[in-house]
């Protein structure tokens, strides 16, 4: 199966990535090969087999108690932010 540049561009948009023409061509080639490779799975009969999302059953994944802890304080978390003012994250304008 081949993935054309139109599909690559659509996937790039879904992935919030911007690709130049050379990269689009390269990825179109790579993704087609990868897709051919993973498409082998269609040979396997999986009738009646339940999909397995995790090796841990949901019955053994307990939720922890919903308790307030003080491990992450505002000042520490903000230290990593690319832009900050008055104790807030500064982000691009989202409402016109």
């Amino acid at each position, binding site marked *: 199966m081949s993935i054309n540049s139109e599909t690559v561009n659509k996937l790039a948009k879904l*992935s919030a990535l911007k690709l130049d023409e050379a990269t689009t061509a390269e990825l179109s080639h790579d993704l087609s090969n990868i897709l051919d490779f*993973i498409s082998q799975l269609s040979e396997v009969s999986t009738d009646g087999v339940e999909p397995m999302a995790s090796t841990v059953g949901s019955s053994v994944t307990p939720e922890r108690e919903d308790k307030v802890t003080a491990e992450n304080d505002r000042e520490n978390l903000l230290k990593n932010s690319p832009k900050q003012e008055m104790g807030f994250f500064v982000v691009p304008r989202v409402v016109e």
Partner: protein
Amino acid sequence: MELYELGLKEAANKIKNREITSVELTKALLDRIEERNGEINAYVTVDRDHALKMAEESDKRIREGNPRLIEGVPLGIKDLFCTKDVRTTACSHILDNFVPPYESTVTENLWKAGGVLLGKTNMDEFAMGSSNETSYFGPVKNPWDLTRTPGGSSGGSAAAVADYQCPVATGSDTGGSIRQPASFSGIVGIKPTYGRCSRFGMVAFASSLDQAGVFARNVEDAALMLRCMSGYDPKDSTSADRPIENYDEKLDQLEIKGMKIGLPKEYFIEGLDPTVKQIIDDAIKNFTDKGAEVVEISLPHTKYAVPAYYIVAPAEAAANLARYDGMRYGLRVEGDNLMDTYMKTRTEGFGTEVKRRIMIGNYTLSSGYYDAYYTKAQRVRALITKDFEEAFKEVDFIFTPTTPTPAFKIGGKVDDPVQMYLNDIFTVATNLAGLPGISVPAGKMDYEGANLPVGLQIIGPAFSEQNLLNAAYAHEKMTNFELLKA
């Protein structure tokens, strides 16, 4: 013998007995890194002051007569375990200025056992790779032959341990990222059962497959290190609520006579180097000479493990990596508007392999393809898991080569993602099934003009780490494998 050549247990004992101090050992290792890192590139961040401060605290505890299990021993930490106040990048440009405000549970456990943070080790970007060539900080060199890869994604940890730049190191293994580099670097690497170690604070790649583990130069050190880092964690609901075993204290409790070794016929295939096969056969013979029994088994869906993995892992990665948007931490590249900023940030921040996997993931998750790819892969995953369950009704362990060949050249497979993916052929199935696996040095061979190590992989049922380590320990005692000289 130089101080930096000490193993984990040896070093812990010498510090406890006050033959050496933690500061002396830490300084010796920091100097070793300074001398060797330009060539090997195993470390991406070394914070000398931070390391020495931790070492001083350990020495104080020793003076007070209050040592813990690995008091004062410096450790290499793969750069995807968040370390509070010490930069953690997952070797991606998008995180290259990230200083975590919190500690991962695995590293927290190690510091509580007395470990000292020596430095953060190089890796493939977000652990996506089998050769350490996708790291934003450049490839790691294999200390056995500098033109070759030490494997990936935990290439820095493997090379650091093999090259005596730390006694032991942490790694993470999503499809073979501990076992393959351990094999390529001539050391021990264990990936425990999914859930044995907490994933809290470990930069996520594929959450249902990621598991932390250990690199060491001998099985006993691997066992001790695993004991220190594993355990239940309320912060990771998939971590297993089981007691931690004192793995390193029971290593000689294996009964070889009557033990059943399974050899999956699908693993001894074309593409497997004949000399690698011979080395594995020799290792098995050591066991059969002492009364172990070999059983040919079948894992019929083996062929589909790599394609299933390369659907499941990228799908989970695409979801996990959606969080990198340049808003609250990490790189931000300002654009004309919000969407443009997202796109510019991610385009500049992620490397090519990461982009490939995000896009494949979004393809297999997109409507119209979801059932044909993602759900199909999950069904195949169930079949692969069942193959192992059937096999372990008949045998105690499964023995395989860790990789089809020894370490390949840097640049050797980088242009062909599918060839690179096939390198994981003997390791990915255990991740899909959540099982523990260990790679332990089995021999050396001449390969493309170099003399390189070959690893034996031993796989066991879920939570059989103790047995697995015991089998690896027995193998180690019966094999004359010489580590790389310092």
